[in-house]
Each structure stands twice: as C-alpha cells, then as structure tokens.
C-alpha cells in the first residue's frame, strides 16, 4: 500500500527505518579521536585485587616454565631449536629397541633365538637400556643432560633473573628444588619413560602373561632403580656445575668433561695398571657397578660394590652442597 504523504514511494522511509539515515545527517559531525598534545597513548592504572595462590602454585609455575619450554615454542623458558631437535633424536634413538623388538617378534617365534636374545627382555638388555655405555652413556644421556641442565642456573646468574624469584615469595629451597626437579623430569621422561615403554612393548608384542611379568618384574624394577640413580646423579652434577658458572657453555662442557673424562682416565689406568679402583671417580662407572648389582649381573669391576656406592653418595652430596651454597649466594639487589 502506498502511503498518502508519498515518502514511501521513494523508498526513503524504509531506509530510514532500517538504518536511521537521513535524519540530521547533514548537520551532524563525526566524532574524530583527537590525540592530546604530548601524549602518545592513554595511560590508565588498573588496580587488581585478585587472589594469589599458595606455595605449590608458585612452585608449579617454576616447574612448568622450565619443563613446558621443551615442547612449547613460546611462553616458557626458551630452549634452542638445536636442543629440542637433539632431544627428539635422543628420544627416538632410545626407542629403537622397541622397533627392533617388534621386528624380532614378527620374524621369529623362537623365544630362545638370536633375535630374542639380542632385543628381548633379559638382564643384559634391561641394564643396557639405561646404563649401556655405547651409545647411551657415551653420546646420549651426557649430551642430553649437558644441554638441558647447562643453562638452568647459569642463565639466572648471567641475566640477573634470580631477582625475579627472590623478590617474590619464592624461597631459595623452593627455587633450588623446582629447578632440580624440572631438569630431573626432562631426563626422566627421556631415560625412564623409554625404558618403561621398552618393557611394556615386550609384554604386549609377545603377548606375555602374568607369570612372565612376575619373572621379569624384579629385574625391570632393578633397572628402573638404576635409571633413577642415574637421573639423580647426572642432574645433581649438572646443576651444580651450572650453579658455579655464568655461562651455559662452560657448565655443559664441564659436565661432559667430567663424565667422559673421568671414564677415559679410569680406563687408561685400568689397561696400564690392571686395576679398576680409579673407576670410583667416574660417575658413570659407579652407576654401572650399582646397576649391575641391582639387575643381578656379574660385575665388571674388581673393587667392592660398597666403594662405588660410597663414591656415588659422596658425588651427589658434594654436588648438592655446591648447588645449595651457590643458590644461597644468589643476590636480589645485585648479582
């Protein structure tokens, strides 16, 4: 129906009804933002009155910051892409026995056959998955530790970032414990998780039952304990070296030098003088010695097991003492 005043026939009324245009458009003016002279932005102080979480929330933040940085590209501690790549290579490398286990299962049914002895679950393989020298303790674990732990404290010393922890309600004990735990977690994920995956894969691939598990579980737990000792010791030594340096390179190279160098010197002395006592200075050999006992393997070393245990305890105690002392000396007001 056409309106009597004729406006509807031009279609303007509908536009006005829909968009409100036409009414006073000619007289109104646009509101244009006018910057105030000398001000480049509007500075507004916004108060905040939210709740602050308890101690465990703060500690978990430290832990998360360091562990998530391994997988997350941003938002957490930055690990160099090379470190992440190496971590991936180490994880894949430490999982190769699982692949070989699968292959041996597929090509052979013989439980006592060569392939099974080579890749299946037995004392030697469980020990070797954690404490085998080549490639794990020569190339993989020490390098992994050096790269993950090297900058953990030394970066804080160099950048002065210890101040952001200690000027907040984070105690030195919490700081040290969370740093240690985050490093140990990364090592544990790589070393212990792949070890557990290997054992689980053996059970699954071969369709083993409870009796098999009952037979092999004590050996598996022995190897797991040896792995825990390894993670503990490497983390402690690595973090102690990181805490006495302001350079992650120095800390990392010192760690590699100590782990590999002490082994090399002890080996040279063994072949020259036919004694294994000097292996007591080598963290790897002390761990290997204890690991052999835990898994139930004959020892490669002539010296008593007790000496390796004492040496391990002394190494860990000394490392943790150095670490604690260096953390205690970290300054808030200046470094």
């Amino acid at each position, binding site marked *: 129906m056409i309106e009597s005043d004729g406006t509807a026939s031009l279609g303007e009324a509908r536009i006005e009804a829909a968009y409100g245009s036409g009414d006073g458009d000619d007289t109104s003016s646009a509101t244009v933002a006018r910057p105030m002279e000398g001000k480049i932005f509007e500075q507004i*102080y916004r108060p905040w009155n939210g709740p*602050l979480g308890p101690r465990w929330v703060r500690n978990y933040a430290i832990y998360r910051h360091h562990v998530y940085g391994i997988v997350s590209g941003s*938002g957490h501690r930055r690990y160099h892409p090379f470190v992440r790549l190496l971590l991936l290579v180490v994880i894949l490398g430490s999982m190769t026995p699982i692949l070989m286990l699968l292959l041996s299962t597929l090509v052979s049914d013989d439980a006592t056959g060569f392939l099974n002895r080579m890749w299946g679950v037995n004392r030697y393989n469980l020990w070797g998955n954690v404490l085998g020298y080549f490639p794990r303790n020569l190339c993989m674990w020490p390098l992994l530790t050096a790269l993950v732990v090297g900058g953990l404290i030394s970066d804080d010393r160099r950048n002065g970032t210890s*101040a952001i922890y200690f000027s907040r309600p984070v105690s030195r004990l919490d700081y040290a414990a969370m740093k240690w735990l985050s490093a140990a977690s990364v090592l544990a994920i790589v070393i212990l998780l792949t070890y557990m995956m290997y054992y689980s894969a053996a059970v699954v691939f071969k369709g083993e039952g409870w009796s098999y598990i009952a037979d092999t579980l004590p050996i598996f737990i022995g190897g797991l304990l040896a792995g825990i000792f390894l993670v503990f010791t490497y983390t402690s030594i690595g973090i102690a070296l990181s805490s006495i340096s302001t350079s992650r390179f120095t800390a990392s190279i010192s760690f590699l030098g100590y782990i590999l160098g002490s082994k090399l010197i002890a080996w040279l002395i063994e072949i020259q003088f036919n004694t294994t006592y000097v292996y007591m200075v080598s963290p790897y050999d002390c761990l290997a010695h204890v690991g052999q006992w835990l898994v139930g393997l004959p020892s490669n070393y002539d010296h008593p097991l007790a000496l390796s245990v004492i040496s391990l305890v002394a190494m860990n105690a000394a490392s943790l003492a150095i670490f604690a002392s260096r953390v205690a000396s970290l300054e*808030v007001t200046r470094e």
Partner: protein
Amino acid sequence: MSDPVIQIRGLRKMYGPHTALDGVDLDIGTGGIGILGPNGSGKSTLFKCILGLIRITEGGGTVLGKDIVTMGPQIRSSIGYMAEYDSLDPGLTAVDHVRYAGELLGMRPDQATQRAHEVLQYVGLEDQRYRTIDSFSTGMRQATKLACAIVHDPQILFCDEPTNGLDSSARQFMLDTLRRTISDGGGTVIMTSHVMEDIQGVCERVVMLSGGKIVLEGRIDELARQITREIEISVWGGATKLEEWLLTRGHRVRRMGRIMRVEMNGDETISAILLGASETNAQVRVLKEYEPDLEDIFLLIMQRLGKEAKGASAIIGGRE
C-alpha cells in the same frame, strides 16, 4: 604522614664485624619516599631487611603489619620490587616475562596473562609486548621491569635506580609513570636514585643513610626550608673582586664560575652585594633568592657529616 605502612625499630644488621645498619628507626607512610646515601651506606641492606630476605641481627619491624623477621614471603607477596640491574630473561617476550612474574606470585596463568597485557599497556609497551627482551632498548627493559614489579598491583613498590641508563624522554616517562602509580594506585613508592632530581620529581619525603644510620628524614620541602637561604647572583666581569670584597666583609660565599651564592642575613645582604658590585665595578646581571633542591641538601649533609654521623637537624640548619 599517613599511617605508616613500614615501621622499623632499632634495626641492626652486622656482616661479621662490619655493621651495615646501626639502630635504624623508620616510619614510612603512603606516597613517594626517596632513600639516599652514598655507596655502602646501607641502602641495599635496608631493602633486604624490609623484604625479609636476610636475618636481622637485632631489632625488628613490620611491613603492612607483617613481621619482617618471620613473615618474609607474605611481605614479598604484597610488595613489588624493581631491581636496579638487568633481571630479565632475554629469550622471553615482554608479555611472557610479565606473565611469569605474575605466576611466581601465585597468580593463575589466565589471570597473569590478562594482567600482563594490562600493565604492559600502562608502562607504554602495548605495541611491543610480543617482542623478545633481547631486542629491547634500555628504556623498554626498564619499563618491562616496572611492569613485572606492579603486575599484582602491590601496596608498596620498591624501585632501585629506576632511571638508570635512560635517555631524557624515557626518564621523564618513567618518572611520570611512577608519579601516576602513586597518585592512581594510592600506594607507596620507595625509590633510590643517584639523580636527586629524579627523587625530587617523584617523592615528597626523603630518608638519608650514612654509615648504616639514618642521618636525615623528612619532607623535602620542609628540609629545603631549613637550609640557610642564599642569594644567587650572576656576575659578568669583576667576579673575583666582588667575591673578595664580600669575603672580607664577613659574608659566606660559594662561587661556581660566574654564579655566586651568598648566604643571606636579612635585607642587608642584598644591599651589601649591590654596594660591592658598585665599588668593584662588577656587572651583576641576575640577582635572585636561590631555591635549594635535594641535591643541595644531600651535598650539604655529606660535606658536613664527615665520617661521623651526627644529628641531621643541627647540620642542615647550618649550625655545626
């Protein structure tokens, strides 16, 4: 002064045989407070004691009603601290850094993220917040440190040399921001700086330390009023003769090139200066009453203090 947020009584801290703080009594209310003192005067030790970071040898006190001896973590939850030296992780972006600073106080990650954006906007880094710290200028780093310190809207903000290494515009922005933090935040800003002008620009009150003791405390304007007034003249030609003329007639004169400051003894001083200028043919181009600033107070105290800490009120009155 408003109700004190920090109360320190008989605070004594010894490092072996060395006394870093010696019986410090201090009340700090809301507003801006400058802590001054030469190197080794005990400023850092006082900060550490107030933050509950070190064991106190003797005495005690409270911060926001919390005991500094037993409640260090609770105190550090309520205060913000902006360190003098670089304390930033160069690999993190500004927003990640501030968020992590918030999480270290116990904030939930989502709260900390939101708050990080808010405070970075406040310190002028809104457009730069996704850049990594290693690409920041000194001014931007200082602003990031301030953002980390105020992420939880603390009641007390400690700033250790906040304008260190800043150019004039960045310095002005930092001082404006601190002033705004006091006025809009309604809290306390405790600040140290070697630039007296900065302290004077932000703080109303000042505490001066020397040899582990408080030698001066009070409002800057009141302290300035207590300093002996001087007449400042700018002399072109004959300045040395005029200086000698004034000195021989018992006036106390400080000369800095063409500028001379003559201690004022009523209106006679001005008459004496004009008479001296007339007799020595010196051209006095400017004559005005000198407004002493914080630097004058500080220098005067330090000059007259010597090694022994005396009562400051007697010293600033010019009557040693």
